[in-house]
């Protein structure tokens, strides 16, 4: 069974240019949910964004786990209609076992992220 952990994240809605230019910490994984939205792990409490109307939310409502590329491939094959991206690093998002899921494919590991309200159901289905 896949056991996920609560993540401390920062969620940002801002202009694409501001998101591109933001100075994230070196260890940050930045998942661009949309051109104007980023989910950053771990949380970036000191981040400044060059958009005075940006919405920056310290968000504890995501759960995730790092898995091996082989495990990620198995999850995708069993529970997902789309194919893992070939070029790394990469990100992908869509329904996995019917639950909205985001993947960050690093070169040697893969981060699986879901909204925490679905954590129990996701673990059960996977």
């Amino acid at each position, binding site marked *: 069974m896949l056991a996920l952990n*609560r993540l*401390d994240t920062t*969620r940002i*809605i*801002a202009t694409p240019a501001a998101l591109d230019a933001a100075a994230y910490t070196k260890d940050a994984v930045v998942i661009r949910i949309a051109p*104007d*939205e980023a989910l950053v792990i771990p949380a970036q409490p000191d981040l400044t964004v060059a*958009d005075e*109307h*940006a*919405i920056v*939310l*310290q*968000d*504890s*409502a995501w759960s995730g786990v790092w898995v091996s590329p082989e495990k990620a491939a198995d999850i*995708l*094959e*069993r*529970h*997902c*209609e789309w*194919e893992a991206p070939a070029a790394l690093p990469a990100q992908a998002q869509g329904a996995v*076992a*019917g*639950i909205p899921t985001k993947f960050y494919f690093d070169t040697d590991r893969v981060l699986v992220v879901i*909204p*925490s*309200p*679905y*954590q*129990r*159901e*996701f673990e059960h*289905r996977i």
Partner: protein
Amino acid sequence: MRLIVDGTPIPYQPGDKLLTAMLRNNIHPTGGGCLCTGGDCPHCLATVDGVSYVRTCQVHASPGMIVARDHTAGYPPLPEGNVYPEEVASRNLHCDVAVIGQGESGQAAATTAMAAGKKVITLDVDQGQEAIGIYNGPLVVARANGEMWYIHVKEEVIVATGAAEIHPVAPGNGLAGIYTARAAENLARAGIDLGKVISVGTAPNYVWHEHVSGRIMRFEGTDGKVSSVVVNDGATDQTYACDSVVVGLGFHPRDALRRMGHDLPVRAVGDAARESDIPPCPLAGTVCTCSGIGVEELDYIWDHGFHEMELVKRGTLAGTGTCQGSVCLPHLRSYLQDRGQELQPPFTARPLTRQVTLGEISAGAHHHAMAESALHDEHLKAGAQMERFGHWWRPWTYGDWQAEYWAVREAVSIMDVGTLGKIVVSGPDALPFLEKIYPTDIASIRTGRSRYVLLLDERGFVMDDGLVCKESDTRYILSLTSGGSSHSEMWLRDWAASGPYDVRIINQTMSLGAINVTGPYTNELLKRAGLEKPMRFMRHGKATIAGVDCHVFRLSFTGETSYELHHPLKDSVKLWRALLDLGQDLGIKPHGLEALTRLRLEKGHIIIGQDTDLDSTPRRIHHDWMVKMNKGADFIGRQALLRTNAIELDKMLVGFEMDTREEPNEGDTIWVGEEYVGYITSRTYSPILDKSVMLGWLFYQDGELPTDVTIKGRPAKRVDVPFYDKEAARARA
């Protein structure tokens, strides 16, 4: 090695297919009919290990296998009672080229594709991999050794499934002991003794037989078993006594998969791409075994004007059974060619080509996921009965809804409202954008204030309701219903993208927890929790409550003093427990939806989707006071309201009272005498009023809304809402 057929163990040999094993023991499938051993016909179906409709020619015998033939009415019986299918695993595979069939042409096609650098997936029925359908994509769905495979193909699907043999159509073709030539060869190779064999048409190899030429006129036999065949040699009918009849009547392509992918990159190769042999026009006998369609049915439907292949299929159901036309299609084409002097193409093929179990058909499918709030476990610990509500699990009651109700009315109570929609709109165009979205005069909302609003569609119908809360001139918080937040978010994003609006939108419904604190002792409880000064009604602001940073909203849905405390999800449990601790001596109890739906109804508050219909305008639900037609900005639905507001009202959502503790049902009809005048949308027994109160749709009668009506045989009276605390003094306290 033995398997069990109809309760009797029978021996079999290594490598035997189930059909071979049965015939080796002189046991025929009870459906009768010509056997093909190629998986094409429906004549060897049986129930195997509890699974109906198994082609016994395609399944290897195994020790202890349980087989039930009872195939007496054309089909094996389906299981009785409730059957909960075993879960079947699914697998999604991706390739450039999929090749279905691994005979000579299939192997050649796969080799060619691989040599061209393509990623190829092959399906081989002899390896237990059976394609059952091709869908848009193209997507090939296959049953493969206990799993379901979903093969996503980027370039091409190649169908190399070979050809099927043509079955005989003549009276008596349902008798056992008739075989196609290929079937006879397979059985002979397996050492099955077919007795005295008469062969008609192309003769089989490896089978000792007497060959006769001519047209098969009928099969004769006793006890369901063939004993002779009558063949017309061009002049007279000749009868040949036999134990078995072997027919070699030609081939037609197994191309159902190609036909169902006719507008997709799907092509057939090898025998699957060949032209079909066309047998002589059937004169009598069963044409479609699956649906029991004989030549007389074809004559009947032809005489009634059904002259096209697709119409004949629909008119008779020939070709819609478990073999999907593999047996009848060449004969149908021959029949129509004979009658209409034109050879018609085969009918359309559609998934599935094979019967599947419920477990297989549902492999990889999921019901809509239900979300859990951060307080889910707290609710369970408190004994809550959880219900699905707006895609969330929510507490319906903690065991005693009346106690929860009275805690709200007389003490203090908390409720998990983290499921409510919470969206932030920010940006220089936030105000004009929201003016466009809402019929309310957004510009008149002052910073730190909230306003109850409706969300309308272009037709002026109510989609959702909630609050607009102003944080600054360029930033607003929107509160929406639990079930409506996702749709409303898309609605907002669509309109933001469609106009010249420089706004940022975030749906933080799942990111924030929210607890509603309500009841006459709410201010006392929150004072203890750190809110130094009570907030005024419909105000909002930031505060630290029980050590948790909250955005606090003063409002009311219950009719009592109420606050919503929005907070980071990680602090939900801490805040929930702290409030329960601090309110112990104030009589605090959590309340669930059962109590809430009654509390809100006493106040006449509507629930969108329950009390409203798809054609509910603000005027029909008596909320036209919320619409500012002349606010100086166009809004979604305004043009429609200009027109519909000029039309005389036909119905309204109104309140009813009934002097009884008996609760009518939602949906109960409303009557004036013998005339139907409406129906109930919400109802409750009101403990504090000691009567039943309701909302319902009431139709105008002669320009007036009736006052005295009958509901469930009892007199009821239309009254103004709210039913309780009409001055809202308690909510504003």
